[in-house]
């Protein structure tokens, strides 16, 4: 086996053991070493990537005559004005551009995708489809109406409306439960994958 690869596997296992020690044993200098190593290497990667991107998409094209790039470069530099109290307000210009462009794009497209498409796809067929599909579609329609009714704030929550709203809350809780469950599943997937890496490096679990 390649010596460098071997060394990499050893370091990997040591760092995994150090980081696992935080919750299997207690917070200690070992877990701190793993944590700080992770943060510092991540920061180093971010820095190298950022410098590479500034060079590739900013400096090099600028030197090749794309003078307009001076505007975003200047806006980027202005972010660092926050370190000088007197000129700190300049950073707002940069943030205004970044947020403005981001919001503009999101608002322009999200109406179609998150509202209109969801609305049109909520019109479901309940006849001339298999019984199971029809039952599922009916449940979806009921869930839709109950959930939307929960957000009617202009009428008092009493009588039939209150009952419908309560069902709407249950449907939302089912969704939130699904989100929570899938997040736990995802995190567990990461955890298991790390244990597998650890065991693989030891020649087990292959």
């Amino acid at each position, binding site marked *: 086996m390649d010596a460098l690869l071997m060394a990499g596997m050893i370091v990997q296992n040591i760092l995994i053991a150090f980081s696992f020690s935080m919750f299997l044993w207690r917070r200690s200098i070992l877990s701190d070493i793993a944590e700080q190593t992770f943060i510092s290497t991540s920061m180093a990667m971010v820095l190298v990537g950022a410098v590479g991107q500034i060079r590739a998409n900013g400096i090099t094209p600028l030197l090749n005559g794309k003078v307009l790039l001076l505007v975003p470069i200047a806006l980027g530099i202005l972010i660092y004005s926050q370190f000088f109290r007197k000129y700190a307000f300049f950073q707002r210009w940069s943030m205004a551009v970044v947020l403005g462009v981001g919001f503009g*794009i999101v608002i322009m497209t999200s109406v179609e995708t998150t509202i209109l498409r969801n609305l049109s796809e909520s019109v479901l067929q309940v006849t001339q489809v298999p019984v199971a599909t029809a039952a599922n579609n009916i449940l979806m329609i009921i869930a839709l109406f109950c959930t939307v009714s929960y957000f009617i704030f202009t009428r008092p929550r009493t009588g039939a409306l209150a009952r419908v709203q309560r069902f709407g809350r249950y449907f939302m809780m089912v*969704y939130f439960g699904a989100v929570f469950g*899938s997040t736990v599943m995802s995190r567990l997937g990461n*955890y298991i994958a790390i244990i*597998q890496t650890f065991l693989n490096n030891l020649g087990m679990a292959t």
Partner: protein
Amino acid sequence: MVDAKEAGQKTGRTKTLADRVHSMDRRYMWWFLTILVATMLVIDISIPLKIGDETKEFVTFMDSFKRGSVILFSNDNTVTVNNVIGEACTATMRYLLERGVKIVFMSLRQDGVSLTLASLRSIPTVDRFKYGVDYVQFGYYAGDTRVVAALQRDVWGTLGADVRGTACKDIPLMQNIKQCTDFAAWIESGGGSQFTFYINNWSVPYNVPGACIQTAANLPDMTTWYRNRLLNGFVSDQTGSAALSRVLGYPSGLGRILNAQSAAHVLLIALILVGNLLYVQEKLRNQRREK
């Protein structure tokens, strides 16, 4: 950590089972979970794998690309995410390249660049494909939805040069790729909401179809988009990755992971049930006491 005795003293009553469980040292649970997972990873037990409709549709979607068509593969994996869905990414890349589909790689996350390279290297047939002709790799682009929006009309201007420093105009594969509609499709892989950037900026306004490979954290969202026909299939988590490898006929290293995952899920469900039962028991006990 609250001691059981202390918990009992605080409420002025004898400690109950709920108090004991509540005050239990959580390290026991972590040890139990870790040992359970490690055991399941070492011992090979075959649990049948169910292949979901969304994974089948993901493959059908890949089959719909004509030979020679160009797709964008946005590899937005981080290292941890790649542990979960890396196999599906590699299988997708391999399948597409072997079918003669050309791939433009880019990343909205920094790790994605090196992970794409690692995935490509792990494809046994990668030497058959020529860089710049069959596939090309662009780097990391900061800006998320802004980058994807910028690619709508100006691919060359947004991507600039590939990871080797070659400008788009000098890359054979990029000659006819000027805007997003020149791509036959997009495939996004990651652990965040990046796939929605492509849905919002490419699929809805320009009808560029897409699919994604994601961790289970985005399963509810992906299901919504899939049902709304804005996603042409998806691969979710290790289960989906293993299913994809099975459908494509590639060897999978995820069999034991799925066993471990199933065992861990059973443990979590059991813990949730125990927690809820104790909660109900405690509630009933308090009600009786108040009466």
